[in-house]
């Protein structure tokens, strides 16, 4: 039996992701046709709007920055065999914690570090009960994380309206203090140094998963808890680890959004700049195959869709929500492991018919 050489096997997940992307865009085109839009014009606008200029690239990376982190939250849990869809709520908590640090009026050099640490701790606090409910009571994390997301949602509403409210503007929180704000990379774009924090986190998680005994344990438990127990690895410890690390990263994502997003540097009522970042991270992680490097590229793709989607909304006038439809189709296509085989089979059949 000939075993395929390694680079081909590493290529398979990449082609699967690319194929799913193509399926998403094609089905998106059909939907646009059905609604009477011109898909070519729309996609041109989407493409130019996302990668057509330095400015649009900067916006793209700004959109990708938090997605990289929330995707890591999901991915590290998946590597550990857990389905953590709680980044959404943990992210809200992180953002609010980062904002609340400015109440302390800390001296400049510590301010941003404390804000980031506070956000990470807040994310961990929000994911800890999920781990404990799983360990203590066997509650499936899909149910508990969603419930905690909703609780976070209303808790955030409460904090914005009653505790952290900007005294001048009731519809948002107080702003992150000047010294805690992340540096803007381009004068007019929203891209901040948060991107570099995200990329460093990618490197840290990569190293953690494949170069440390901790990562060895997480992956081992994710693949086979029985064999891991046999090998002397504590499964309970990994569950706790995976949720705490994930919560910290999601909290960090929230902090970066609020500390790096001009012009308000505050959490707005209704959480418009935060909503769905956690859920989009799930899609990014899936397209990136739960691999830190894959996630960076997938986040760039999603960031491009979001950046270009806004432009597409103006030019051919295709609603931004189409981007979300495309994302949903891509995930569905990714769920099908046979997709690649089906694709080649269909191509053979077509070729045969001719």
């Amino acid at each position, binding site marked *: 039996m000939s075993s395929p050489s390694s680079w081909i096997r590493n290529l398979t997940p990449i082609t699967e992701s690319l194929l799913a992307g193509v399926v998403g865009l094609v089905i998106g085109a059909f*939907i646009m046709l059905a*609604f009477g839009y011109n898909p070519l014009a729309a996609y041109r606008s989407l493409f130019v709007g996302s990668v057509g200029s330095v400015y649009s690239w900067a916006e793209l990376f700004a959109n990708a920055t938090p997605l990289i982190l929330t995707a890591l939250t999901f991915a590290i849990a998946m590597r550990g065999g857990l*389905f953590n*869809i709680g980044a959404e709520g943990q992210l809200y908590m992180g953002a609010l914690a980062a904002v609340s640090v400015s109440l302390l009026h800390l001296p400049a050099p510590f301010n941003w570090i404390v804000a980031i640490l506070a956000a990470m701790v807040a994310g961990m606090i929000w994911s800890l009960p999920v781990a404990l*409910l799983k360990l*203590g*009571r*066997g*509650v*499936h994390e*899909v*149910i*508990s994380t*969603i*419930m*905690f*997301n*909703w*609780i976070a949602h*209303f*808790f955030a*509403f*409460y904090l914005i*309206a*009653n505790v952290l409210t900007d005294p001048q503007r009731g519809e948002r929180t107080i702003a992150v203090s000047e010294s805690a704000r992340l540096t803007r990379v381009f004068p007019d774009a929203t891209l901040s140094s948060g991107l570099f924090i995200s990329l460093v986190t990618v490197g840290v998680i990569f190293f953690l998963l494949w170069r440390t005994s901790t990562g060895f344990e997480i992956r081992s438990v994710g693949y086979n808890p029985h064999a891991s127990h046999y090998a002397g690895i504590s499964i309970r410890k990994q569950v706790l680890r995976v949720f705490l690390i994930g919560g910290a990263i999601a909290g960090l994502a929230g902090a970066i959004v609020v500390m790096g997003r001009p012009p308000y540097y505050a959490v707005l009522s209704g959480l418009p700049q935060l909503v769905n970042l956690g*859920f989009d991270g*799930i*899609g990014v992680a*899936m397209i990136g195959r739960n691999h830190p490097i894959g996630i960076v590229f997938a986040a760039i793709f999603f960031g491009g869709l979001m950046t270009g989607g806004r432009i597409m909304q103006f030019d051919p006038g295709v*609603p*931004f*929500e*189409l*981007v*979300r*439809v*495309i*994302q*949903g*189709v*891509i*995930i*569905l*296509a*990714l*769920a*099908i*492991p*046979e997709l690649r085989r*089906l694709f080649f089979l269909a191509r053979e059949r077509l070729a045969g018919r001719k």
Partner: protein
Amino acid sequence: MELTHLWGILFISLHAMVPITLAAIGETIEESAGLFNIGLEGILLFGALAGALGAQASGSALVGLLTGMGVGALIGLVFGTISTSLRGSQLISGVGINLLALGFVALMLSVMGAPGFHSVAREVQVPLIPLGVGNLSPLVPITVAVAIGVWWLLRRTQLGIWIRAVGENPAAADVAGIRVNRVRLGAAVAAGVLAGLAGAYLSIDWFGAVTKEITAGRGFIALAIVVFSGLNPLLALLGGFIFGFFDGLATWVATYPGIKDIIPWQFVAMMPYVVTLAVVAGMIGRVRFPSALGVPYLRE
């Protein structure tokens, strides 16, 4: 407290019970057959939109409900196909359905010219049954009937034996000549029908409108109720009523003068989710799930 308030809470609870219970009973059929669909939330959302569009296009609430069921069946078919013959991941396709629903419904709402909100005309909403003390949706007795019917189906018919066998030991069912994937696909479609009906109920009966947030996690609460019920549709009905009660209570408290000044509405709104967590945490370990739940079946 006056008696009318009690009636009010009871009616809100019953109305809040309907969607989560219908979705939970659908999921019960599906989980009995071994499929775990976290895309319920998405099917509810699709059903809400389809119900509204169907009712408006035909001018009939009944057609609206049927449209919701049909679209639900279609999504169930997609989920079932991916999870069975295409050997896909149930969790990932569930997430995909949720994302797709969110995007598609938002897209439709903005195409229809009212981003985020679309109200359904009173005339095409499901007519309520006047009972003197209040008006009751006909979906309430229908939900009760569905619970009893599905209990009978799963526990007292040959089909129920097959469905449960496929969930418990697909290899044994296969050896016995049962088409495992076909039974699972059927269960996925049935679950889609019930979740689609639940969604249509949200838009053309209970709320009289479609919004992006109309489902508000009810699909996931339904998943929790399935855990609570241990795959017994009659207990799912009870669970649905308990959650409906807290949902109803929250709605009622949020509007009741005096109370809303003491407890901020945000905390009241959290109640159904907190209760879900508490009840599921208290329940687990005492219920038993099919051995092959969530595991795709491949013949060796």
